[in-house]
């Protein structure tokens, strides 16, 4: 409440001032506002010592050129998210599920970033430093839009709005270029595409509605070959036999998958439409629950696969 009052007061003063001396340039120390899962917050200046407790938010920060003072589970991040890499100087502050608050306190942060799954720690985090919690992934909104908005909002908070806009625009331009290339390569319409991640040789996670791969495919003008319902993480968890429902187009699976031999040698697998038509491909490690720029990375991989077959 107090911050809201302060903001109104600031805005009022600004208006009054501008009435006197015309338009004011934005100057450092200008109150900036950011809205998280709990409502609007205002910061007098851009936070400098940030700690991120969530991988997607870590990714967003590093993409904006901000080196977090501390991050949760950097080792897991390197294995699964990989790109962009975490700076050497960032300190490990424990697991995402149980962040070490004393370690965080010792790093003297001026901002903590929490993900949607860390509601239980919001109160604890607030006791240590100002905290923002973002519900990036949810069944009730468009994940890709929410994550892009978050990227811009973080840009505003850290005085890097222009950079954030530029990066998104670059990504969109790149995706648009790839879309045109695909359209040119496939004049009769591009094939459908389905991204999957194998849990083991009999169970699979299929990307679908509200996932980052879907956002990438929309930008590339591609359709999914597997209809899924809307969900929080944009996935369906199924036995591999469910892949038989994919009647046409490409199926791309993401590394790592250790039990390939046990699945790819079965008769049933060879009978799958996408295997018969030789449209099954392997993608490198991609994190499909990540930040805004991951849409571009996923899109590039998909486009590369489709174009490789044309050359």
């Amino acid at each position: 409440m107090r911050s809201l009052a302060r903001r109104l007061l600031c805005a009022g003063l600004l208006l009054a001032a501008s009435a006197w001396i015309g338009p004011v340039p934005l100057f450092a120390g200008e109150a900036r506002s950011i809205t998280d899962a709990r409502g609007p917050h205002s910061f007098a200046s851009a936070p400098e010592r940030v700690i991120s407790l969530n991988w997607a938010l870590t990714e967003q920060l590093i993409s904006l050129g901000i080196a977090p003072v501390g991050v949760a589970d950097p080792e897991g991040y390197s294995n699964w998210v990989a790109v962009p890499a975490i700076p050497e100087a960032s300190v490990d502050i424990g697991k995402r599920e149980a962040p070490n608050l004393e370690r965080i306190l010792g790093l003297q942060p001026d901002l903590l970033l929490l993900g949607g799954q860390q509601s239980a720690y919001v109160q604890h985090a607030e006791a240590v430093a100002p905290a923002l919690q973002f519900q990036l992934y949810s069944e009730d909104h468009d994940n890709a839009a929410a994550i892009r908005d978050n990227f811009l909002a973080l840009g505003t908070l850290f005085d890097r709005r222009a950079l954030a806009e530029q990066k998104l625009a670059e990504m969109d331009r790149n995706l648009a270029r790839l879309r045109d290339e695909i359209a040119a390569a496939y004049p009769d319409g591009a094939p459908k595409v389905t991204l999957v991640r194998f849990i083991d040789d009999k169970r699979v996670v299929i990307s679908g509605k509200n996932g980052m791969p879907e956002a990438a495919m929309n930008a590339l003008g591609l359709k999914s070959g597997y209809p899924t319902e809307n969900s929080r993480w944009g996935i369906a968890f199924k036995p591999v036999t469910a892949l038989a429902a994919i009647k046409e187009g490409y199926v791309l699976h993401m590394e790592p998958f250790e039990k390939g031999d046990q699945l790819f040698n079965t008769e049933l697998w060879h009978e799958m439409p996408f295997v018969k038509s030789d449209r099954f491909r392997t993608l490198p490690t991609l994190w499909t629950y990540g930040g805004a720029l991951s849409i571009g990375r996923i899109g590039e991989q998909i486009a590369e696969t489709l174009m490789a077959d044309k050359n």
Partner: protein
Amino acid sequence: MRPAAIALALLLGSVVLHVAAGYPTGLTLRELIDGTGLQSLLFWSSELPRVAMALLVGAGLGLAGSTMQEITRNPLASPSTLGTIVGAWLALMVATVFWPEFAGRYGVWICLFGGLSVTAVVLTVSGLSRMDGIVVIVVGMATNLFLGGVVLVLALLNGETVQAVFVWVAGDLTQTGWADAQWLAPQIAVGAALILALARPLTILRLGQDAARARGLAVLPLVIVLLSLSVWLTAASIAVVGAIGFIGLIAPNAVRLLGVRSVVPGLLLGALLGAASLTLTDAIPVALTDWSRTLIPSGSAAALIGAPVLVLVAMKQMRPDASSGFQMVWGLEKLPPFAQPALSIAAIAATALAIGFGASPDGAVWIGDQAERLRPMLISLRWPSVIAAAGAGAALATVGVILQRLLRNPLASPDVLGVTAGATFTAVAGVVFLGLPAAETAIPSAAFGAFAVLILLSLLWRRSETPPAMLILAGIALAALLDALIQFAMARAGSEANELLVWRTGATSLATPTGAVTLFVTAAVILALALSFRRWLTLLTFGEGMASARGLGVIRARRTLLVLVAAGAGSVVAWVGPISFIGLLAPHAATMLGARQVGQQLVVATALGTILLVAAEVTGRFVAYPNQLPTGAVASLIGGAYLFGLLLLSLFRRKSI
């Protein structure tokens, strides 16, 4: 041969049902006979092998369970209660974390190794000569809890790697060809043939081990060989399809229900009924495959059907005096005079030290050595976690004493009876299935679950002749059912499960100041009330007859005490998550110290419970810095080690426990 006819009819019916559920849509008879095309292949190399696997695994587990029960003369013996399954699970988990490539290639052998070694340990620790009693089951359950704690810690420290293992833990029969069935069929066939060939002498064993020896039977070698074969059957089955726990417990009990008494036909029927029950339950996930957004593991379905069946069967089977008179107590005869004040002071001191010392990159740091401006902050971060641990330890110890006195059974504790599992399940289900926000809804839903389980148990109890052992059995069945459901929820891909992983392991670090104070006060109030009901508890310990004769309203006393138990166990789960072992261990350790009177036992157990859980909280902060291990997981490691030590001691002292 009526029982055989019933079993065969069940078997046929379940196969027909399964095929009907799994028949690919739009597959014409012509395509089916041609055997070409994808739909036809889905039938021939996915649905049919799945039926075959259900039959094989079911038969293997049914036979293993029947053999184990025949040898041990113990209606609760089964692969899941003797630690076989958890052993396989742990071995696979460790291999997956440390040598992923090796685990991917040799998963089957890893499971065999883990299952065999853990079962061997359980049986050796409890003593091969005492398998008919409840000791083996105690050890097996302790092992389950203990190793379950290890597994959860591993899962927590390696979040994304072990998702596959969680699927495996829930047990799933999905097939993509005949490879698994071809591997498993000879294993089961050879194992079963050997068991059936060796089973005849078991008839003599029924007279008791001494009588069998007198007739010239080499009891020990026979028992060892047959048990090894049963474990082999189990491990081979679960290695390929994951942990399907209930079949081995249901089948032998169902055989008894059919009234079959002779050994070899009984074992055969056990295999048949195991095959029928797994095929029947597996038809459910198959039928729901297209409808459900997420895969339903076969093991969850088996538990869903199996648990109620088990309770019903048990109600028919259990003899009223099955476990009364079972005492797990030795140690001091009388409590030393200084023990109560000394332990109370120790509990307070432990709590204070836990708040004073913290972990840092340079090791342990005393609060006085920290920068002055950090001190108040550090204290305010630390005390809720420590006070919550103290409150949880105290509440669980008190509740454990009440339950053990009430049921006259040293095994009774909120975790064993399924109260903890009930609370956990409702909280997890709320988050995973209803999408409720974890932080806001965990508390009411956990409390609801704890009360629901206790109400269920007291309904079973209304027939005053229900023996305490029956309740324990119902509790075990219920806990296993709820555990299977929890595993199912956790197996859902995506990270909802990760969010709950910490809470599921009993994380006091989640406690807010409000929560910590609430829990601590709740624990104090429950202890005070329990102390004021001293006379009731004393009378109930002597049995109902005695208590009624002394003018106690048994029903009312029970109800009141159960409400206390639900309030205590429910609050702990709600505020810090499920914590095993403390409720079992603290009352027991108190008795060992000589606290034989109710009042003494309550005070000493509460002090011990507090010390234990505070110690677990501190250990969790230091061991894997900067990562923090959940208090509950550490507590189950400490508790498991204690129980094992105790059992080993008793083995060497040759005292009955």
